[in-house]
C-alpha cells in the first residue's frame, strides 16, 4: 500500500497493523460470517469443540515433551517421574489422556452429525473428505500415543495393531516393517511411534485442518435438507461466545476427570511376559477388536482375520467416498438408504464396544 494507503488504514495500532497485514479483510470476513438457525443448530458446535480439545492436546503434549524420554529403557520411568515427581505432572498427563478420548468421541459425534444432516452435499464433498482424513489422523494419534508409556497394555495393543496392518495382502510385510521399524515390536518401534506422534501427525493435521477450515469458510455452514432458508446468527460474537461457554464446560469436565480419575500407568512392558487377562485396546478401537475376536479362524477357507481387515478397509473407503456415492443428495433430498446404513453402522459399533466391556468367559 502506498503512503496514501496509510491514511486510509486509519490512525493508531489498528491502522499500523492494517497497513502491514490487511487484517481488516479477516475481521470483515468474521463479521460477515453467519450461522443458520434451525432445530439442528446445536450440532454446529461440535466442530469448534473438536478444535478446542485438539488445542488442549497440543498444549499438554508440548508440556509432556519436556520430561518424556522415548527409549524402551526410560519411557515408562519418565512417565512415572511425570506422574509422581513433577509438580502437576499427574494433572497434565491425565488431561492429555482424557482429552484424547473426549476428542475422539466428539469427533465421532461430529462426523455422524454431518453424515445424518447430509452436510457433505455438493459443493461440500471435499470438506467431508478432509474431515474424514482428519478422523483417521486422530485415530493414528491415539494408536501411536498409546504405546509411548511403554506399558503392558500398550505393548500388546501395538503388537496386535501392527500385525493387523501386516496381514494386508500384498503390502502387509512392508507396512509391518515400516510401522515396527523391524520384524518385532521393540524399542525401535517406540522411537518410530514417538516421531510419528510428535512430528509427522501434527504436520499432517496442520495441513488438513487448515484446508478443512478454509473449505468451511468458503462454503459456510450447511443447512440440512428440509430446513428452509431463514434466520441466522452472527458468528462473531453470538456463536463464538456460545462456543466459549462450551469450551469452559469441557475444560471443567477435563479437570474433574483428571482429578477424580487420574490416568493409570499400568506395568512396564515385558516382551517375554504373556498377554494379561482382560487385555483390550482403547474404547474407540473396541468394535474392531471385538469383530476380530468373534471371527473364526477360517471362513470359507480364508483366514478370518483377513476377512475382518478387508471389511474394515472397504468400510473406511465407503465412508470417505459417501458424498460421491449418495446420489440423492444431488437432488437435495434426504437419502433414506444412507441414513439407515449410518444407523446400522452406529448400532454395530455400539454393540461391539459394549461387548468388549461385558464380563465374559473365561
Amino acid at each position, binding site marked *: 500500500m502506498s503512503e496514501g494507503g496509510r491514511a486510509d488504514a486509519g490512525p493508531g495500532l489498528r491502522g499500523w497493523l492494517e497497513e502491514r497485514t490487511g487484517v481488516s479483510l479477516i475481521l470483515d470476513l468474521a463479521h460477515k460470517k453467519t450461522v443458520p438457525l434451525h432445530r439442528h443448530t446445536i450440532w454446529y458446535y461440535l466442530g469448534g469443540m473438536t478444535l478446542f480439545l485438539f488445542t488442549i492436546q497440543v498444549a499438554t503434549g508440548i508440556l509432556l515433551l519436556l520430561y518424556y524420554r522415548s527409549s524402551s529403557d526410560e519411557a515408562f520411568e519418565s512417565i512415572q517421574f511425570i506422574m509422581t515427581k513433577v509438580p502437576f505432572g499427574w494433572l497434565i498427563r491425565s488431561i492429555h489422556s482424557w482429552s484424547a478420548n473426549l476428542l475422539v468421541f466428539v469427533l465421532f459425534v461430529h462426523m455422524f452429525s454431518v453424515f445424518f444432516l447430509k452436510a457433505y452435499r455438493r459443493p461440500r464433498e471435499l470438506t467431508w473428505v478432509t474431515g474424514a482424513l482428519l478422523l483417521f489422523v486422530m485415530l493414528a494419534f491415539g494408536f501411536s500415543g498409546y504405546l509411548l508409556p511403554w506399558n503392558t497394555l500398550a505393548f500388546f495393543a501395538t503388537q496386535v495393531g501392527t500385525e493387523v496392518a501386516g496381514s494386508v495382502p500384498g503390502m502387509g510385510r512392508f507396512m509391518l516393517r515400516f510401522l515396527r521399524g523391524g520384524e518385532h515390536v521393540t524399542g525401535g518401534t517406540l522411537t518410530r511411534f514417538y516421531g510419528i506422534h510428535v512430528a509427522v501427525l501434527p504436520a499432517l493435521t496442520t495441513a488438513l485442518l487448515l484446508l478443512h477450515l478454509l473449505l468451511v469458510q468458503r462454503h459456510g455452514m450447511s443447512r440440512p435438507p428440509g430446513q428452509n432458508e431463514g434466520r441466522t446468527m452472527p458468528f462473531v460474537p453470538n456463536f463464538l461466545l456460545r462456543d466459549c461457554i462450551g469450551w469452559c464446560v469441557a475444560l471443567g469436565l477435563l479437570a474433574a476427570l483428571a482429578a477424580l480419575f487420574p490416568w493409570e500407568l499400568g506395568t512396564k512392558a515385558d516382551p517375554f511376559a504373556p498377554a494379561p487377562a482382560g487385555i483390550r485396546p482403547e474404547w474407540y478401537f473396541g468394535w474392531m477388536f471385538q469383530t*476380530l475376536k468373534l471371527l473364526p*479362524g477360517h471362513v470359507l477357507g480364508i483366514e478370518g*482375520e483377513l476377512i475382518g481387515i478387508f471389511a474394515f478397509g472397504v468400510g473406511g473407503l465407503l465412508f470417505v467416498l459417501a458424498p460421491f456415492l449418495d446420489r440423492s443428495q444431488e437432488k437435495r433430498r434426504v437419502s433414506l438408504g444412507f441414513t439407515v446404513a449410518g444407523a446400522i453402522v452406529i448400532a454395530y459399533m455400539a454393540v461391539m464396544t459394549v461387548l468388549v466391556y461385558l464380563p465374559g468367559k473365561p
Partner: protein
Amino acid sequence: MSRRKFLDWFLGTSVGAMCASVLYPIFRYLVPPDVPEAQTNRAVAAREGDLKPNESKVFPFGSQPAILIRGADGTYHAFSATCTHLNCTVQYRGDLRQIWCACHNGFYDLAGANVSGPPPRPLEQFTVHVTEGEIVVSKS
C-alpha cells in the same frame, strides 16, 4: 520437435528426476534394513524342579518368547509363545489345561493345536530334553 517442446520435456523430466532423487532415499530410509537375526535353535528354558506339574513358564527363545509347560502328568511340552492369530504372547491355563491367548480368547491344546477362537494355525512345537538337570528346548 520444436525448441519449446524440447525445453518443456527437458525441464519436466529434470524436475521429475530431481523429485525422484529426493524421494527415493527418503522412502528407503523409512523402511528398516534387513538385519539377519542369529538363528536360535536351542535354549535352556528352566532347571529341573523349577516347574511343578500343571505349571508353565514363558522364556526367551532367541528374540522371541516361547512357553514351557509341565503337564499334570509331569511331562514337558514347549511351543513358540506367539499366537498365530495376531502375535500376542500366550499363557498356560492350569485350570483348563489349555494354552490361552488373552488378546482374542484363542485356545490351543497341549499338542499346540488351535482348538477354539480365532487362531488359524497351531503353535510351533519345540522338542524338550532334560539333560544334567537342565530343561533344554530345541527346534524340532
